């Protein structure tokens, strides 16, 4: 009753606000079949209104109302409603009546003469077989749809070939009863393959129960649900379908696209929008003055096959089963696809980080090892090499000291003899004493030289004359060289060749090279010769070379020999040349080896000249 009251209020407003006919917008009566918001017809109306405002700027006066009979039962008296409408439009009949759904259309055609005999009628949202040809006048036209049940069922069986059972959801209002019979007739030929269960005799809750417990290989065909077997309408605001979908254990198919995207698996569908658009076109043309009978658009048929990807996924429908040319909508990338770049990006970052951490750890370890090694090597440099040299030097030392000591002894004994004479030979004695003093000093020099060499002193940088270093080293190795029958030659320039370095370091370098050279000449025939050369290579560089007459170095090993622990000698430590290189490079110099044309090896060192601008 409240509904009727509100309609009366609206009607009153209309009546009290009458304006001159010429300035008034066109009046359109939109007549629903089950109620304004009853699905799926509400969709038609919605799109119709939207399309109309898109297609025309002309304002219209749109009045929506609904017949009640279908909804409220067949025994509903339609008289009062007819009267209501007539009164509503007394002063001015509508310029167009648009009926949504067959019941509304049939109503108007039935009561047209009592209501608005001259008003054109546009039937919308009506299936073509529901159009009664005989009732169509020149003032009627329709935008009908074609529901091809066979195509719909065939679609179900195509995409789900194992389907053996189809449950048909359909209500019990008169139109729905019509359709139930239609459907039953249409599916009869298929019943040997598929079992059809019509749920029209169930209340909606019962239908829901059934839908939740369908046997395997079932599908649901949602035809229409307006009023169930208990007489309860269920589709205001379109609730029926979602409620069904929530509980159904089988895929749901339908014939129109009202639920496409909300649970309809898909297939060939009637496009509500298309129908509505066409209807709006026609309506506008009628209002512009065209005769409805001249506007008889052909019924709209199913559109191309469409499918909801999510439903396909849900029900395990393989895309391969879809008919060719099918459009798959609502594709959702999988988590992977959707977040692929995020995942990959994250993975990449994680991997990169792990990689960086790993490489940093590795680097740290390497650095620690390298530091330890270099520290060790430094210690070796200052100690081990010296002790190596010391052992070589021990015979050098012995020899060195024994010379002056021997001389002193001889002289002392000579002096003794001379003193026994009478008179003693003073001149000779004086010579003897002088010689003794010289030899003593010589011995002292040797000792202090040795002590300096052995002392773990800090590195002292001085301007060291390379020539003197050569002399030092030569002195050290001479006994060893003589023992081995090696001749030593030194070619030095007269001018001092100063290098800013620690004297001991330079001695070590040359000593190591010399020892190396002597070892190389071990098994060589005579003459065995070692040559020291020192010269000013360029304006700013001093070059020192140590040449031997050994067997030379294999060409591919000319670099390797400077590597730590590279040795070809059974008793070799492999440290001498690498220590030499470390020292030379420490002072900004270079060291390399080459083979002499005349046989044997040549080691060259270049060091910056002290005081020269590099």
């Amino acid at each position, binding site marked *: 009753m409240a509904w009727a009251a509100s309609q009366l209020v609206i009607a009153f407003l209309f009546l009290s606000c009458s304006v001159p006919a010429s300035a008034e917008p066109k009046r359109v009566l939109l007549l629903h079949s089950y109620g304004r918001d009853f699905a799926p017809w509400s969709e038609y109306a919605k799109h119709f209104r939207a399309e109309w405002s898109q297609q025309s700027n002309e304002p219209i006066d749109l009045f929506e109302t609904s017949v009640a009979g279908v909804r409220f039962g067949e025994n509903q008296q339609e008289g009062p409603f007819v009267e209501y409408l007539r009164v509503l439009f007394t002063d001015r009949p509508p310029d167009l009546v648009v009926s949504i759904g067959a019941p509304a259309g049939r109503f108007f055609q039935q009561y047209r003469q009592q209501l608005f005999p001259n008003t054109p009628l546009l039937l919308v949202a009506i299936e073509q077989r529901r159009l009664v040809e005989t009732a169509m006048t020149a003032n009627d036209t329709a935008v009908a749809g074609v529901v091809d049940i066979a195509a719909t069922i065939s679609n179900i069986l195509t995409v789900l070939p194992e389907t053996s059972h189809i449950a048909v959801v359909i209500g019990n209002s008169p139109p729905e009863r019509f359709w139930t019979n239609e459907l039953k007739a249409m599916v009869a030929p298929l019943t040997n393959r598929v079992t059809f269960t019509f749920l029209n005799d169930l209340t909606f809750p019962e239908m829901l129960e059934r839908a939740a417990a369908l046997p395997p290989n079932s599908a649901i065909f949602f035809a229409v649900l307006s009023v169930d077997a208990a007489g309860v309408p269920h589709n205001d605001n379109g609730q029926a379908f979602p409620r069904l979908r929530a509980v159904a254990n089988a895929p749901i198919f339908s014939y129109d696209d009202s639920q496409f995207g909300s649970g309809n698996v898909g297939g060939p569908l009637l496009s509500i929008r298309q129908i509505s658009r066409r209807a709006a076109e026609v309506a506008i043309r009628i209002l512009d003055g065209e005769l409805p009978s001249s506007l008889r658009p052909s019924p709209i048929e199913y559109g191309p096959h469409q499918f909801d990807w999510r439903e396909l996924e849900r029900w395990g429908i393989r895309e391969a089963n879809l008919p060719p040319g099918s459009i798959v909508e609502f594709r959702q990338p999988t988590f992977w696809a959707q977040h692929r770049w995020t995942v990959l990006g994250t993975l990449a970052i994680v991997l990169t980080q792990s990689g960086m951490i790993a490489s940093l750890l590795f680097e740290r370890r390497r650095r620690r090892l390298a530091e330890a090694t270099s520290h060790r090597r430094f210690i070796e440099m200052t100690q081990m090499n010296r002790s190596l040299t010391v052992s070589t030097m021990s015979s050098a030392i012995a020899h060195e000291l024994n010379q002056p000591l021997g001389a002193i*002894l*001889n002289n002392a004994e000579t002096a003794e003899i001379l003193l026994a004479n009478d008179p003693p030979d003073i001149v000779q004695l004086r010579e*003897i004493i002088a010689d003794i003093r010289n030899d003593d000093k010589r011995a002292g020099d040797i000792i202090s030289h040795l002590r300096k060499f052995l002392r773990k002193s800090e590195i002292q940088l001085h301007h060291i004359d390379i020539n003197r270093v050569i002399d030092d080293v030569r002195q050290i190795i001479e006994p060893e060289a*003589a*023992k081995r*029958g090696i*001749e030593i030659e030194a070619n030095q320039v007269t001018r001092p060749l100063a290098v800013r370095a620690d004297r001991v370091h330079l001695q070590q370098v040359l000593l190591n090279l010399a020892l190396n050279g002597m070892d190389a000449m071990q098994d060589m025939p005579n003459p065995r010769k070692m040559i020291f050369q020192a010269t000013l290579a360029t304006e700013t560089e001093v070059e020192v070379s140590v040449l031997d007459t050994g067997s030379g170095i294999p060409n591919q090993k000319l670099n390797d020999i400077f590597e730590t622990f590279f040795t070809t000698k059974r008793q070799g430590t492999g440290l001498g040349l690498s220590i030499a290189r470390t020292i030379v490079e420490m002072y900004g110099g270079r060291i390399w080896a080459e083979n002499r044309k005349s046989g044997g090896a040549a080691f060259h060192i270049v060091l910056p000249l002290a005081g020269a601008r590099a």
Partner: protein
Amino acid sequence: MTAATTIHVVDDDVSFRNSIARLLRTCGYQVAVYESGIEFLKKLPLSGPGCILLDVRMPSLSGLELQERLLRTDIILPIIFLTAHGDIPASVRAIKAGAENFLSKPVSRKPLLEAVERALANYSDRSEQLGRLAAMRALVASLTPRETEVFRLIVRGKLNKQIGHELGTSERTVKAHRHAVMEKLGVASFAEAVSIAERLGMLDGAESVKR
């Protein structure tokens, strides 16, 4: 050069060289000094008795090498090695090569002079020996070819008869040759003849001169 006994000192360390020369001269020896083996070789041939004081380690020509070279000459002066660092291998090598002695610096007067004296005495013996050998060689060289053949077979213990058979002469001829050999060589017994042959190395089939 006079035939006076000369000690030859070869040492490149000037201080030591001078001091030892001074000492030896003070003790009454004639001393000649050389600063290297090469210098010494330049002064050959030497005459007169003496010995060589040779430093082992020297550049260019070590003491041992010099010794080797001298062996190839007919210098029979004994060599006393001096070394500043007394290593065993060098000394063993030296002795094996026939060095007289091996002294290490510093060396005091007594062992030095003892070594020198012994060396000089050895030299006399040796030169005497060599002289005798030379004389013997000369005597053997004075034999006629036939006599030489007979001598060779005699010292091998062959009987006259066998010798005659081998040489294709009569026993009587052999006896005559035998007599001549004994006389020329100045030996009275068969044993002495054998001794000569042995000294001259004729018994091992090769002439060798033992120094």
